[in-house]
């Protein structure tokens, strides 16, 4: 099959077959207001010209900004091996391999990816990835509805607000009820979460560390959910799993999260990948592709897509999900990242994040008018009050090349003074000192 656009002759031929006089006549049934007025495409460019344009756009996109922004997407190191391996032609197609006889490499890599996700989350079964953290959370909620046959989700409002938005949008479309439980300061309100679980609750959804950076232990909440026949869904930040309790260790039934931090570049917001893992007994309710290991007729090890009866090409509208796709290439970068670091390296990376964030926390807390709002432990992210509206302060620091954090006012009414600051392993001591100096200076004005 060629990839060249239709020639005028092709178009004439096709119109003749279907009996339309012109392209205009073919599109005539589409109401005028829905038709594109103009595509306003610029004239074509030479390769050299295009490179210049792209360089200019890259520079304007914040390459010179030092980010202390997290909130779900994180600026981590990416070993050179990740880019090199992921760019190999054998992997460089994001589409799902249906044919095991010609896709063993990709299938094995996805199988290894699933293994890595299971080890990180402490659960038993992972799929081959989903689109992103938000849709993974929504798919987990839908899965809990299927597993329990119930129609209600208790949602901790200290889960990433963007992910909550996706969850609510999905659940509204299946007429499920979502009860959001406000946090208590910067912590999850465990008492109220527990009190909200009833015999109608399919699952409780929480996040660790939560959006304010607070590290939580949801073990008691998991036990309480199970008493009522409900599931615990834990969204997690993979890098933190090198240091904090995994969803599996807490008794969670489904773990989800945004996979970007595992070897994927920030790239203006995507593409990234989402992950989802669960206990073996719920595997038939997992959405999306699952790769399994098997043997062929000669007893040789091989890999295939498995349990496909859950999926839409077989079960149609009764499929576990109508996403049923994955983000193979981004997920493979995630696998390559974890493999490049190894278990010890992963734990070291997490410790480094924690240590640097603690340093930044102490520097910022030393500034007059600034106070740390997290009552307990944090990982590489924490919330400070600046004693005044945070958004303008963040805006003013951008001019000095520092993105100081995520102001919370937009997401949590009444928290205008609060700022979530993220410090990954990439931030140096001098960058952290500079952040503290600039914040102090801004607050003096």
């Amino acid at each position, binding site marked *: 099959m060629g990839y060249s656009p239709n020639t005028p002759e092709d178009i004439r031929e096709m119109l003749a077959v279907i009996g339309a006089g012109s392209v205009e006549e073919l599109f005539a049934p589409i109401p005028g207001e829905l038709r594109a007025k103009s595509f306003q495409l610029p004239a074509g460019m030479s390769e050299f010209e295009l490179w210049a344009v792209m360089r200019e756009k890259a520079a304007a996109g914040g390459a010179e900004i030092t980010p202390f922004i997290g909130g779900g997407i994180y600026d981590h190191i990416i070993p050179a091996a990740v880019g090199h391996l992921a760019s190999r032609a054998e992997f460089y197609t994001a589409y799902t391999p249906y044919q095991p006889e010609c896709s063993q490499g990709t299938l094995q890599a996805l199988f290894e990816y699933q293994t890595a996700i299971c080890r990180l989350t402490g659960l038993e079964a992972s799929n081959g990835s989903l689109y992103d953290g938000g849709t993974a959370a929504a798919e987990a909620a839908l899965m809990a509805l299927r597993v329990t*046959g119930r129609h209600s989700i208790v949602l901790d409002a200290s889960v990433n607000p963007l992910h909550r938005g996706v969850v609510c949008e999905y659940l509204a479309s299946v007429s499920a009820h979502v009860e959001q439980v406000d946090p208590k300061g910067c912590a999850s309100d465990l008492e109220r979460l527990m009190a909200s679980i009833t015999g109608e609750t399919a699952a409780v959804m929480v996040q660790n560390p939560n959006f304010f950076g607070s590290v939580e232990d949801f073990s008691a909440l998991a036990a309480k959910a199970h008493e009522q026949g409900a599931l615990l869904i834990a969204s997690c930040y993979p890098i933190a799993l090198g240091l904090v309790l995994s969803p599996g260790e807490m008794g969670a039934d489904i773990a989800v999260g945004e996979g970007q931090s595992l070897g994927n570049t920030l790239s203006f917001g995507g593409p990234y990948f989402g992950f989802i893992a669960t206990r073996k007994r719920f595997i038939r309710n997992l959405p999306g592709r699952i790769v399994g290991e098997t043997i062929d007729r000669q007893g040789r090890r091989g890999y295939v897509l498995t349990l496909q*009866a859950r999926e839409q090409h077989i079960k149609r509208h009764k499929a576990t999900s109508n996403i049923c796709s994955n983000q193979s290439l981004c997920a493979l970068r995630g696998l390559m990242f974890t493999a490049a670091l190894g278990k010890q390296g992963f734990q070291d990376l997490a410790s480094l994040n924690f240590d640097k964030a603690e340093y930044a926390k102490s520097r910022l807390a030393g500034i007059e008018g600034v106070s740390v709002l997290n009552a307990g432990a944090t990982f590489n992210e924490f919330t400070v009050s600046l004693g005044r509206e945070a958004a303008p302060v963040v805006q003013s620091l951008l001019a000095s090349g520092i993105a100081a954090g995520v102001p919370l006012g937009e997401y949590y009414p009444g928290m205008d003074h609060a700022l979530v600051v993220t410090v990954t392993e990439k931030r140096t001591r001098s960058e952290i000192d500079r952040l503290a100096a600039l914040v102090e200076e801004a607050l003096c004005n």
Partner: protein
Amino acid sequence: MAKFFTKEHEWVEMDGTQATVGISEHAAHELGDITYVELPPIGKSVKQFDTLAGIESVKAASDIYAPVSGKVVQVNDKLEGAPELVNESALEAGWICKLEAADPAQIGSLMDAAAYAEFLKGLG
């Protein structure tokens, strides 16, 4: 005891008000190697022809419909580890579940073995 069949290829056998349900040999053959039977939860109430259980084979995934209204009182646990029993013995060892029938007279709306055999011929 006599079995009665639905157009969706389930069978039901009544013992008083207890209805044993399975799928026909024709259905098992058409599905091919059965890999999984999604058994209904005990206590589940169904109306006649509602979805009762699910069945997956190497070729397809299908619903199993309730031949009569009732409440699930027993499931064939052996199918969890050996779904192939449905292929090997669709009418006996491969039964799916037992219902406490709400209205045993509903079998009157089903086909007996001879009528079902005719019905299958009609499907050609």
